[in-house]
């Protein structure tokens, strides 16, 4: 969201502590494994410090209400001390896991396994082999050398990560909300999203604080953000819903419960923040491979992150970054995922394992909840906005400006979400293809993957969603007897129909689908269509070839099936009353062609095309270089198509010289014509309804 970019000033927040930390960290031991422990220890300690700084919010049981009340202040602190958000995350995790499990969880998800559960829920997987420790010398050097650049890097990274976090949060939350309804669903959704994003961002900050801010860390940060967001989504949603469900009086009760829980938690909390964090990374060497895998995944899912540049020192830095993630960020997200409700439908992300749901839903989301609004009951949009802005109060714009920013970011998010959804993506793809088709037909399309005949493979690819839709759902083309089409060169003779000749296109699609073993079929179109402005250009790019003996011979030489419509323009311009009545078959050019090349003739009957674009009248079109413009339906009508392939006529026993024998040519022409006409009549008899088939 814009918040990360506009609202937060990453320089203010990140820069000062970072420099301090760099100084601290620089003299740290150089070896990676050794370096990891002190750092994580430091993180944990500072987390503890932050907690206490917050007025003991999480620890002090009786004051459990305090974090909610003091949220604004807390948020301010969050902005001031970069450790605080991380601390909140730790806290959150502890509660999520429940008091008894905190430690256990921690052990189970020791860094060696931390990552793999994200991808494969049940087994730790082979990916979790411990990786050999790797000296971090280079990374440390880099870190020490350019503090300025690192500041900038860090700012960028945070921005990217927060974008990613919010995108992921939105997705996850939306998915969770899919099944639920309620009067204030939108508000709840917004609240939950905000919550999740917030958490994810804090996790990122934590990672960054511990990291060295180099370029590859962005990937890590983004990944962490995404993962955390997805992981926490379920919890957040539940929480928001719960809060919404219960009335104020009950809320008091719940918070009392919370309090108890907090108290329970407290002990373990202390234990693992202090010890487990410090100990774990040392005990189990973090994995190498899985990290990379899911980072890649997160990247592909997250458009914001893709722009991150890759430095030359990528390898070393990347790995060092990875390590830190394992130490801090990821284990958080993992343990949360365990407790989360169904989160993500995306296949590459872990599907939640219900059996691992160790917490009753009511207990799940405690301290987390206190974040977005301590007064969420009369949730009006304005209030929501303020609730979001509050954690960001370090940034000056409050009031109207803040609201505006919030609204903007909301709008942006919704738009992004809409674009990300699958169906819309397909629709956009189709639109893109259509736009390209229009541009092509206007003669500005460009296109660079043309073959010698002018078919543009790129355009066909882009239009494929449209063609698929037309073929499968709109015209519901059914194909019969396609197995009779012989391999190699063949002349498919079909009836031409409709004012706009879609039939060639559909024939080629049908052959491509039903007979992928054949070479790509081409269809011949008469000059009136081929040289028609726009239509002709478009058809040419889609695979139409101008009807001429040279072209036909060349295509047959390439052993392609060749679709011809011997009726020619006459056939395409039949009045509607004469539909499916075959016109004269030209001068038998296709028969001569077959005799010369020996290619068999396959009669084909197409039913449905006539009703797709019925010819209602004609407009004289001489001024456009057209004999006449057909007056037809504004778009193709959804008639059902049936294509029937007949028995092939082989040219065996006929010498190529027979092509000059007009009588022979006439006989074969007539035979083909009769065969098609009888198939047409049979199909028309079988057809009960034009549109239903």
């Amino acid at each position, binding site marked *: 969201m814009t918040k990360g970019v506009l609202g937060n000033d990453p320089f203010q927040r990140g820069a000062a502590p970072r420099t301090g930390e760099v100084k601290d960290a620089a003299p740290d031991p150089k070896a990676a494994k050794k370096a990891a422990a002190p750092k994580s220890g430091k993180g944990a300690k500072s987390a503890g410090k932050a907690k206490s700084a917050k007025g003991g919010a999480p620890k002090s049981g009786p004051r459990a209400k305090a974090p909610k009340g003091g949220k604004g202040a807390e948020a301010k602190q969050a902005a001031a001390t970069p450790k605080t958000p991380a601390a909140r995350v730790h806290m959150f995790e502890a509660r999520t896991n429940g008091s008894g499990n905190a430690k256990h969880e921690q052990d189970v998800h020791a860094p060696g396994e931390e990552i793999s559960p994200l991808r494969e829920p049940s087994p730790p997987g082979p990916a979790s082999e411990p990786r050999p420790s790797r000296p971090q010398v280079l990374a440390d050097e880099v870190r020490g050398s350019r503090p300025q650049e690192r500041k900038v890097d860090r700012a960028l990274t945070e921005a990217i990560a927060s974008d990613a976090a919010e995108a992921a949060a939105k997705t996850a939350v939306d998915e969770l909300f899919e099944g639920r309804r309620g009067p204030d669903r939108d508000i709840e959704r917004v609240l939950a999203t905000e919550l999740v994003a917030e958490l994810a961002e804090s996790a990122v900050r934590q990672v960054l604080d511990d990291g060295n801010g180099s370029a590859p860390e962005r990937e890590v940060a983004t990944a962490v953000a995404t993962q955390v967001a997805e992981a926490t989504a379920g919890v957040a949603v539940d929480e928001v819903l719960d809060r919404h469900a219960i009335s104020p009086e009950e809320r008091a009760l719940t918070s009392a419960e919370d309090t108890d829980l907090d108290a329970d938690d407290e002990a373990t909390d202390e234990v693992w923040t202090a010890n487990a964090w410090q100990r774990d990374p040392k005990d189990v060497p973090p994995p190498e491979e899985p990290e990379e895998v899911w980072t890649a995944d997160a990247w592909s899912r997250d458009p914001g992150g893709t722009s991150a540049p890759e430095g030359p020192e990528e390898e070393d830095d990347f790995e060092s970054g990875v390590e830190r993630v394992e130490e801090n960020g990821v284990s958080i997200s993992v343990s949360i995922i365990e407790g989360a409700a169904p989160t993500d439908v995306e296949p590459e992300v872990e599907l939640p394992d219900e059996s691992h749901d160790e917490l009753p839903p009511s207990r799940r989301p405690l301290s987390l909840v206190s974040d977005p609004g301590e007064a969420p009951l009369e949730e009006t949009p304005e209030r929501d906005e303020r609730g979001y802005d509050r954690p960001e109060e370090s940034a000056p714009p409050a009031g109207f400006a803040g609201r505006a920013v919030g609204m903007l970011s909301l709008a942006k998010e919704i738009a992004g979400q809409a674009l990300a959804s699958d169906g819309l993506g397909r629709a956009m793809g189709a639109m893109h293809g259509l736009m390209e088709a229009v541009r092509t037909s206007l*003669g*500005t*399309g*460009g*296109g660079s993957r043309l073959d*010698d005949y*002018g078919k543009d493979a790129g355009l066909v690819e882009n239009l494929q969603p449209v063609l698929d839709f037309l073929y499968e759902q709109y015209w519901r083309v059914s194909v019969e007897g396609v197995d009779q089409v012989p391999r190699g060169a063949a002349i498919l003779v079909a009836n031409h129909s409709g004012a706009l000749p879609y039939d060639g296109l559909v024939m080629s699609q049908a052959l491509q689908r039903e007979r992928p073993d054949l070479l790509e079929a081409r269809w011949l179109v008469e000059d009136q269509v081929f040289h028609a*402005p726009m239509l002709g250009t478009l058809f040419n790019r889609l695979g139409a070839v101008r009807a001429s003996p040279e072209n036909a011979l*060349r295509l047959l030489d390439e052993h392609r099936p060749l679709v011809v419509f011997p009726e020619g323009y006459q056939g395409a311009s039949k009045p509607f009353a004469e539909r499916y009545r075959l016109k004269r078959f030209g001068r038998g050019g296709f028969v001569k062609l077959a005799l010369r090349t020996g290619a068999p003739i396959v009669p084909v009957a197409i039913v449905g095309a006539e009703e797709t674009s019925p010819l209602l009248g004609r407009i004289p079109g001489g001024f456009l270089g057209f004999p006449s413009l057909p007056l037809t339906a504004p778009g193709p009508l959804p008639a059902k198509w049936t294509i029937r392939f007949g028995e092939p006529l082989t040219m065996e026993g006929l010498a190529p010289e027979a092509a000059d024998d007009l009588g022979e040519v006439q006989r074969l022409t007539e035979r083909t014509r009769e065969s098609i006409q009888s198939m047409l009549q049979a199909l028309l008899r079988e057809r009960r309804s034009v549109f239903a088939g």
Partner: protein
Amino acid sequence: MRIAVTGANGDYGKLLLPRLEADPGVESILVLDTKEPQGTRKVEFHRVDLTRYDAEAELTDALTERPVDALFHLAFLFGPILNGPLAHELEVIGTMNVLTAVGRARLPRLVVPSLTVTYGARGNNPALLRESSPLFGCPHSRFVNDKVEVEGQVRAFRERHPDTRTLVLRFAPLLGKSLDNPVTRLLSHSVVPTLLGFDPLWQAVHEEDAGRALHLALRADVAGEFNIVGRGVLPWSGLIRQAGAQPLPLPGPLFRGALRALGVVGAGTLPVALLDYMHYSWVADGERAESALGFVPVHHVRDAASALRRSQS
């Protein structure tokens, strides 16, 4: 091997001469031109003005005095033709003189470049034009029709002089940074007009490929016409885009009228004849050059066009 070249300072000459210079089999290059090419080692310069009335005698003298193994007749105009009669004189009459002199000197080999535009852009062109297709030229273009006339002369010469191995190389539009022809000039604009609703297929040859084809013609054991085309085809709009310009579709009648008006005013920089080539495809089949001449294009049309863009920037 001794070689004579006319028009060594033209586009073709600039492509060929460096290759001949680098060819160890070439001893000397007899340049028959109005001015001496720069920076050459093997060149013997003989000043001949092909447009003069005594050009034929000069050429015959030069060729009999110092016999050569091959003559490249490269004296063709690609620049804007400001002086139509002079262009006609140079191309048609000049070629006539050259052919006569070659016949008299009984040279073993003659190479004449031509263009695929001589096939003409017509609605009933087949998808791929073979060398045997008739040359229809372009009704409005002196530029193209002069070339068609030259081809006719050369064909007649070849029939009368079977001893002279005559090769005609029909080049698709040449694209390259050093070249100046109607197409490169057109593509150098930032906005290039197209015909609304039409997007014919174009071919092009990269200048390197063109130079190589000319060089191959020096030793090939074949005669006749060859289409020298680059790999692949591009629609006109795609070519424009690849060259770094924007296509601007204009409705045909308007476009034609505007061009005529500009031509009448005298400001016409775009030949009206190009309209035909923006309307219908004229794709030549380079198969024969590949199989007989051994010319395999290295560059795709795309590359040729984008080379143009690089040279502009």
